[in-house]
């Protein structure tokens, strides 16, 4: 496998785009539907749990040694995520921006970007997220336009969380942390391996949490709960309702930002899968082209409201297994193996 490294900042930017891309426009309504005024509290609780997971990952990543079968499992998981995300992206674009454009054109366009990035040098995929930094700022600025319309009483009452809200809220919040296992894949490639302190991880998790909590609060304070029940993509709807003199449809402008964001997250997931593939086989160009062809075909069978929703629901269970349980199991296995080796 080709030697490559990345800095702490590259690692966290990679993770941020991977975890926010695609899902950040829909996670708010999912969480609020499940936990109402307590949604942001539950999000913070789940985020703290993931901070703990990241800390464990950082401490024991050396034991995360995948065998060939496990590598294939992870690849299948990530390619499935990509297929699901592409179907979702096209579904949203069809509703909001391109109702007439054939799905295969939109999906091919997105997949071509990924193919290009993954056939190029590693640096392309690792650094492509940089172009999103100004978009993150623009998105938050666009969101802030709604500040004057927020109804602060919508925040209350909060604090009394019943068991149903906990179960549903935690389940829906997990959606925002899909891709956390990428940390384990990328961590060995960080320059100065010993230098990744808990403080840096906590800061990253704080930024990610703030990003999501801000969007959840804006949605919660802007819409009534009854409205949120019928609007699946609340952020888009919120921006659509904002009027600025120089741009008639803010939502459309945001759609393009989100599309870019999502395409890059697709690039990153494909990069993860292909980087594992490259650890097993030296020749990878044909496979790279083949897998991109496959992920551009499969979403075409999923682009209906019901299938998009169902496939997203299934992804949450994928995260429970591939993001949390499986890595912990592999690290435990690796740790026991190292103990055995030490004894020998």
């Amino acid at each position, binding site marked *: 496998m080709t030697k490559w490294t990345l800095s702490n900042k590259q690692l966290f930017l990679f993770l941020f785009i991977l975890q926010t891309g695609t899902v950040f426009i829909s996670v708010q309504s999912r969480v609020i539907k499940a936990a109402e005024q307590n949604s942001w509290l539950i999000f913070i609780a789940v985020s703290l749990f993931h901070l703990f997971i990241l800390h464990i990952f950082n401490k024991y990543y050396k034991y995360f040694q995948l065998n060939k079968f496990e590598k294939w499992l992870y690849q299948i998981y990530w390619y499935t995520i990509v297929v699901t995300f592409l179907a979702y992206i096209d579904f949203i674009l069809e509703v909001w921006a391109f109702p007439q*454009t054939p799905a295969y054109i939109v999906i091919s366009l997105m997949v*071509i970007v990924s193919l290009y990035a993954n056939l190029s040098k590693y640096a392309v995929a690792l650094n492509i997220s940089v172009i999103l930094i100004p978009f993150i700022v623009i998105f938050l600025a666009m969101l802030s336009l709604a500040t004057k319309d927020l109804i602060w009483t919508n925040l209350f009452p909060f604090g009394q969380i019943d068991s149903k809200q906990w179960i549903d809220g935690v389940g829906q919040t997990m959606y925002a942390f899909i891709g956390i296992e990428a940390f384990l894949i990328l961590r060995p490639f960080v320059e100065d391996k010993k230098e990744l302190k808990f403080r840096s991880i906590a800061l990253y998790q704080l930024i990610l949490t703030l990003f999501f909590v801000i969007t959840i609060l804006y949605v919660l304070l802007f819409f009534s709960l009854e409205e949120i029940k019928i609007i699946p993509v609340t952020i888009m709807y919120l921006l659509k309702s904002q009027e600025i003199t120089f741009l008639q449809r803010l939502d459309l402008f945001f759609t393009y930002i989100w599309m870019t964001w999502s395409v890059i997250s697709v690039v990153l997931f494909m990069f993860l899968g292909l980087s594992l593939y490259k650890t097993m086989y030296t020749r990878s160009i044909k496979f790279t082209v083949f897998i991109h062809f496959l992920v551009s075909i499969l979403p075409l069978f999923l682009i209906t409201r019901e299938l998009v929703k169902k496939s997203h629901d299934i992804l949450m269970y994928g995260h429970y297994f591939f993001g949390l349980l499986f890595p912990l199991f592999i690290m435990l296995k690796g740790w026991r193996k190292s103990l055995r080796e030490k004894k020998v």
Partner: protein
Amino acid sequence: MKKKFSIILLVTVLLSGCWDERLNKNIVSVPMVAFDGEVGHLKGYYGLPGKQRNTTEYSYITVDGTSIEDLRQKVDLQVNEGIDLSKLSSILISDELAEKELYHLLDQYYRNARNRLNTYLLVTEGDPEPFIKFGEKMGDDVNNYYSELVQGFIHKSVFPNIDLQLACSYLMDEAIDLTLPYVKISSENGVPEVVGLALFDGQKFTGKTLNHVESLLLQVMKDKIGKYANVSYIDNEVPVSFRINRIKRMMKWEGTTITIDYRLKVGIMEYYENHLLDENRKKKLEKFIQEKMTSDMEKVVEILHESNTDALGIGRIARAFHPDVFKEKKWKEIYPTLTIIPKVQVEITDTGVLD
């Protein structure tokens, strides 16, 4: 390899715009629509400004249909091009129609991503056709005539800033009720004029309205005034006009009795008795204004209670902080049992260039 990819990428990017291209020459923009009748037997009026539909003159189309979408499709059949509602600036609804479920009329506008959410809603006294017909006299203002009218009155603190999106929010939230601009055709000159605010009880127009002075007071009571909030009274045959510069609102809840204290800072705009540096005269005038405003606010509360319109959003505060008073799905029964007492304290902080 890279060159090939670059070409493919470029070609695909160029292609993606073709299918969803909507040229202005192929569509007819509708800036205002009006509805009358009832769902199942609706009548729609679509204003079509000049310089499109092969005409330079303003015209409007009248159609009958069962639903808002049905009306739209029927209008589509009457124009060579497709009609485009993405620039719709105002929707006028007859008072009779507004007395039915309002959301039933608006669903189509929320559902379509191309529709604007900043469109203003107005309730008309009687048949809305003359309001659309009046487009013939609007000249270049036809695209934004009613929306600018509403915006003007938002600045004057007579109307709340409620557009299509916010109306949906109000309609779906039982803890607050909607108020919409109420307009009529002047019997003197046939020009659309503002009456005040139409009061809603849940989804339905109650048939009760506030005049424009009461509407302004309602915005003051909500602490949501626009750029200007000017009030005029007569104090012992001396006119006194003032603008409200600042409002501080505090609510005290004692069981089902809510006392709302308003502390207003006002600037005198007209008072020919002058000498407002004289502390006694100033206090006397302040007392007059606060008594008058308190009694006027009490009248507004009475009207709101009669129509069961929680325009002040008392329900939202109850839901947030008084769970003993607020009960889900029961607020419309609880609200009329509340006693709301407004109390006004006025401080004159500005007298213009004269004392």
